[in-house]
């Protein structure tokens, strides 16, 4: 059975590792497989995410000719000393562009939760993963101040920990899909990039030793930040503005998690934020829900990319 609310998902759980164990067990139980088989399946998704970044080809152009090569351009810019942001944010930008551009150029990606928003979660997780691997010493469980977090939680390997974070993100995504939507055609871009960003924020907060309360505030804060976002793809293609919005979604996930880790809270509970997103989606005009008949798609420049009508 799908999770219908964040309150139900958490259900008096205080230990996030216990919560994740429960999510895995529920999935295994529901599909009549073992927890190990479920975990292996999630691991395959994580490996595919890593591959989608590693297999990026900056020389590719999309079929429509609208996109391709921007991640390479940004990487070159950084390599030559350009840019003002720190390495974490820079790598986040690069990875989000790489995955989203790969998607536009018919390369293999993981829909998370959709193809249009496929860059957000991998960007957040892979960036963190690479930073951790590069500097494992900086990741010291002894720094954890929260008494609710057990030191034993850090006995997982980094890879396992990331895979576990995907369960957390997916369970949150399931609540968003149930209460609101994860389809641009139903809820606009807030339902795709918004949902992906919210899921990624929860995973990022978890991977940075956030407790359940902080994790859910991270999710609420990030979804709130993107409420009302229209789905108005130029020419009907998953490219403009989708690709660069994956960068926005990834950065928003990290900043929201950062706020939550500092103890800053969302005044509106997560479930209510999700409900608001659903309501906004239903009120959104059809021209702003993936029909390419409004917004950016209908600007004088956007119109030039519409497919020829017969």
């Amino acid at each position, binding site marked *: 059975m799908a999770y219908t609310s964040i309150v139900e998902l958490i259900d008096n759980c205080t230990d996030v590792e216990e919560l994740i164990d429960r999510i895995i067990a529920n999935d295994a139980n529901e599909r009549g497989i073992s927890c190990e088989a479920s975990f292996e399946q999630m691991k395959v998704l994580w490996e595919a995410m890593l591959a989608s970044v590693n297999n990026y080809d900056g020389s590719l152009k999309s079929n*429509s000719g609208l996109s391709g090569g921007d991640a390479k351009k940004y990487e070159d810019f950084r390599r030559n000393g350009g840019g003002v942001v720190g390495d974490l944010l820079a790598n986040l930008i690069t990875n989000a562009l790489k995955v989203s551009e790969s998607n536009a150029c018919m390369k293999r990606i993981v*829909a998370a939760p959709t193809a249009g928003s496929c860059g957000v979660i991998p960007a957040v997780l892979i960036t963190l993963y690479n930073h951790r691997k590069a500097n494992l010493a900086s990741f010291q469980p002894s720094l954890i101040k929260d008494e609710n977090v057990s030191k034993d939680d850090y006995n997982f390997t980094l890879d396992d920990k990331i895979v576990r974070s995907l369960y957390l993100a997916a369970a949150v995504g399931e609540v968003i899909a149930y209460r609101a939507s994860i389809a641009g055609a139903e809820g606009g871009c807030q339902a795709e990039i918004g949902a992906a960003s919210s899921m990624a924020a929860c995973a990022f907060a978890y991977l940075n030793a956030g407790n359940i309360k902080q994790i859910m505030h991270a999710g609420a804060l990030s979804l709130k930040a993107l409420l009302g976002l229209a789905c108005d793809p130029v020419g*009907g293609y998953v490219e403009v503005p989708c690709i660069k919005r994956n960068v926005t979604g990834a950065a928003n996930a990290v900043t929201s998690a950062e706020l939550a880790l500092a103890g800053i809270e969302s005044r509106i509970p997560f479930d209510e934020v999700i409900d608001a997103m659903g309501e906004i989606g239903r009120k959104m005009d059809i021209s702003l829900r993936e029909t390419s008949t409004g917004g950016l798609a209908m600007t004088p420049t956007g119109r030039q990319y519409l*497919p020829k009508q017969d």
Partner: protein
Amino acid sequence: MNIFDIMGPIMVGPSSSHTAGAARIGYVSRQLLGEDLKKAEILLHGSFAKTGKGHGTDKAIVAGLMGMMPDDERIPDSFDIAKSQGIELSVGEALLKTEYANACLLNLESVNGRSLSIMAASLGGGRISIEQIDGIDTHFSGDYPTLIVHNLDQPGHVAEVTSTLAHKSVNIATLNLYRDKRGGYAVMIVETDQDIPETAIKWIEHLEGVIKVTYINIEKQKEA
């Protein structure tokens, strides 16, 4: 809905409805044809016709028809691969009678001369529905092991098929019946929870009044 409906699938971009769904339509159609493809006429409807080219919908359908899954990285090159295998392709547009925005009609011919006409729709998120086979309503997804029995519309065929499955301990998930007219040509669509053994399929094939039996199990195909 489960966790992996949210996270995943692994697919070749850019669109779950226009690319992954299209590849799946091709793949399921190839399984239904049951033999290698010789010739295909692909007619795109609605949004498939409008933005299909930019989304690689045509390439994805052709890839699926050659047995490639939605995550196959050869999808962008499917036309060249088809050409090298001597497969004849034509792609056009058609206005189909369907409620879905993304749909297509596939007129297929196998290397052994078997022909099959399939109308299918992409529902979003990579999910699909086979709407018609040879002009008869079907409405199934291919997510489950699916048995399609074409038979004469006469008493007893449902009982024969369901009792055969019961003997093999196969649980029926859904069962749908369609026919062109009373006493005419009927199609039975049976979705099951377990794989159906070949002996059961052979048994059903030889029953009097049964015209044709097709069986697909995509999960099993993937493992093979």
